[in-house]
């Protein structure tokens, strides 16, 4: 029955969301106990700044932590409301679908937020990945080769379509 199936899907999702949210709310609260109220029934407009969020142990050592938090924030400066916080963890979890992860990965690697991965974005990504241990010539070479390999429409920067096409060829794209 159609109704059965819909109800079957709706209720467990809600249960899961409620369960998830209560755990996440605890984490969110402990990041800034003086800012975040325990009671969210009035939907207060509270945002935690970037510096506090990247102090979480999961993100602390990640070289892309600033970009990750920025790409989930509404204002682009990394201040996350609770909804954004939940969004971030839902996308970073293992159960998020691959397409969603690809979309957000693209955002994270897009440092100048122009919806394209241009050479500068790639250079910054590379430097963060290798902790600047590659020489500048090597960095330039790698970026050029990478763009050459992945750019399909020939505009010497990677659009999302190029990025996604490349990602589908790499089954190790995990997070």
């Amino acid at each position, binding site marked *: 029955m*159609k109704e059965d199936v819909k109800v079957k899907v709706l209720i467990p999702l809600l249960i899961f969301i409620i369960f998830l949210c209560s755990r996440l709310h605890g984490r969110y609260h402990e990041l800034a106990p003086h800012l975040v109220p325990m009671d969210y029934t009035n939907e207060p407009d509270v945002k935690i700044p970037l510096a506090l969020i990247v102090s979480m142990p999961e993100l602390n050592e*990640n070289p892309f932590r600033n970009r990750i938090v920025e790409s989930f924030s509404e204002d*682009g400066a990394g201040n996350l409301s609770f909804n954004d916080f939940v969004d971030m963890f839902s996308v970073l979890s293992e159960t998020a679908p691959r397409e969603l992860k690809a979309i957000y990965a693209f955002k994270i690697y897009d440092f100048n937020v122009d919806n394209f991965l241009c050479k500068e974005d790639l250079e910054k*990504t590379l430097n963060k990945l290798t902790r600047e241990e590659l020489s500048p010539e*090597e960095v330039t070479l790698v970026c050029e080769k990478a763009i050459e390999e992945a750019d399909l*429409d020939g505009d010497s920067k990677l*659009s999302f379509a190029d990025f996604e096409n490349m*990602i589908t*060829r790499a*089954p190790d794209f995990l997070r």
Partner: protein
Amino acid sequence: MANSVDFNLSPIMELELESLREDDTAQDSMCQLIRVTGTGLESGSPETLEMEVLTTEGRDRMASQMSDVRERADERRLQRSEESMQTDLLVRNRWSAATLRVLSSMPSRSVGQQSRLEIISQCNIRSTQLRRYHRQNQDVSLSSRPRIRGYGIEADSEDVCEEETKRQELVINLQSLSAGDRVRMMRATPLSLAEKTKLRKLAFSDKVGQSLLSSQVPCCSLLKRALYHVLFGCLFILSSLQLWQVALKRLGGRFGTGVLSYFLFLRTLLLFNVFLFLINSLFLVLPQAIHPPLHTPSSHRVTGLELFTGTGYLSNSLMFYGYYTNSTINTSCRPDEATAGTGCGTTSDPHMMAYNIPLAYFFTIGITFFITGIVLVYSMSKSFGRSFRVFKSQGNLAIKVFSSWDFKVSKKMSVRLQSENITTQLKELLSEVNGGEEEKGRLSGMALHLLAWSISLGSTFFCALGIHCFAKHMHLRRLEDAEGEVSLVHEARLLALPGVVSCGNLLLPGLFNLVSWMENYNSPIVRLYVSIFRNLLLKVSILGVLCYHWLGKIAAEPEQHGLQCWESFVGQELYRFLLMDFIFTVLYTVFGEYIWKLFSQGVLRRRRKPVFDIARNVLELIYGQTLTWLGVLFTPLLPAVQIIKLLLLFYMKKSSLLVNCQASRKLWRASQMSTLFISLLCFPSFLGTSVSVIYTMWTIKPSSGCGPFRNLPFMFHSGKQWAQELKSTNPKLAWLNWVHSCLVENPLFLFLMAGVFLMVIYVNTQVLDGQRKIISLLQEQMENEGKDKKFLITRLQAIHEERQRPLSPSSRPQPQGSEV
């Protein structure tokens, strides 16, 4: 790039052009382009002038015409070598506002438009274009919560009503999808959680409301629904209370996904064994335990050694095959009334429940194997689907840059190691790309490989031969011992063969490691595969020799080997092998990892700790599981032993890792490796054991003195007898027998099934080929479209610049590369 743009995005050209027409400047530019293109090219064909209305069909035509035009323009450009001018025009910061406006409304800015039901997703995109924001959003084009999928660029001055209608449209569209697709679509859209919850409520709510309100709902469907709620609620809570979740997170954070995959594999095996154990104990062990058969009391001294050898007190226990009766248990009789041999009397009370032990034994083992096989094949195919790549790519730089970072790693040291790792790999790739591979002396390389392979294969062969001879020798010794009195030493000798086999299993992989280090493979992946193959070959040959011994020699002539009950003996052997394997693993962990770490840090003064060898450990797990599966037929409680072993192994390996080892420097392709492991579990391991179990059941005569099949010529006759009894007692079910004889005993049916399978495989391969071809065609098309786009951009910019120039009369219009 800091212009705020007010365009409605739409993937369909008509709507886009409508919006373009709203903006006069953009339209002007486009018209200019058309005009100039028409007049600027002398050798342009007349068709190029027909570019007035850009409808979809017209666009295709135009595209082909443009490509014609482009080709000619290309040639001319090359002749004049004005490409530098071209590239200049492509530089973004020289673009004018008009060009930027046009560019920002291109459909490629609407990121990621894949979906399964294309029409509905387009509706989806169209209808969710305008999202409501509570606060002003000035620099929309630079907003970092990017509007992908065409949401992006909106004006805040839109009507609330229009948004509502759009949302309603989307909700209607979502409702027309099936539930599964809807959920998938919702999950994959990058909307914020708040929006998704609202949409979900709207999309699901009215149907739910209807169903609850309607009074025609029968009570059984209500019950079903309630059951589903409870079941799914439990499942979700269970999945969040996953076994060892915290420990796995810690391990993953420190060591990465490679080592994590080993522990996940261990957990999978544990679940398989728990399933086996539950089914066996429920249907087999429990009924027999409640109604124990009569045995002559045997005088065995209870020494501690029995726990290891499985003999003595344990040999007549529930653990082994010999304990089980061959009769039907009647549940109403009490144990003290039981007569010897035939169970509890023969009163045919119609209210009694009769439980036929031999039948239960046969069917339980058969069904557990069947279900395990199905689950294995399913998980293998799922894993394979996740990791399959349509195009093989080697050393792709771009992929390395974007997808080699393991986001699970969170410890500082490990993060630094990962960075170093990636740096090294990128350097290697760069040197490959630049210099090409060196040509080593090919002959010496070949000779080295040949030597290495001959060493490994030879050592495997000799090991197997040695085990064969040793096993024969041990059997002779055992016969001699059995004639004398039973002593502790004689019992301990039973542990000799398992000990030797485990030793071989431990030492030979070390030899293989040494050999492959000597070979010095270029690519670490090839090295890994070679090492896995060699280890696998070793284990398969050892197990093959042992099976031949047990099933081929001992089972065929049990009297020659002095055995009353050969099945119990084989069960005991397998039990001993499993225990010995565990003991040697513990010893290896203590000596191999802990003491080696002390040695290498103290004596050799090396700063690096040893690395966890994932492949070897996983193969050990597979070996242990193979032994368990082989032994289930003879020792129904062997899964319990394996469960205890796996639990202890988990904690031991975890503590050993944390204390002794460090993260590996090699890149571990986790998804491909887990596919490999589960397919190794399925193919050599499970297939081999099911073949041997089927062989045992179908061709080997059970021993006549013990066990549930004692008076039957073959084990499967219990099922056959039952089918025949059924025919006589209950004629309605006679067709079962007919079906059985037709399907299982008729070889034609099996040939037909095999033929059908082969055809299905062939069709799937052809489909895959076709899809590959389509992919390459589409890639070509994309490249062409990209060139078209480049051309259009440069033309636009050129026109715009030309327009600007006449304002300054002093400067002569420079010859544009794409004109003239």
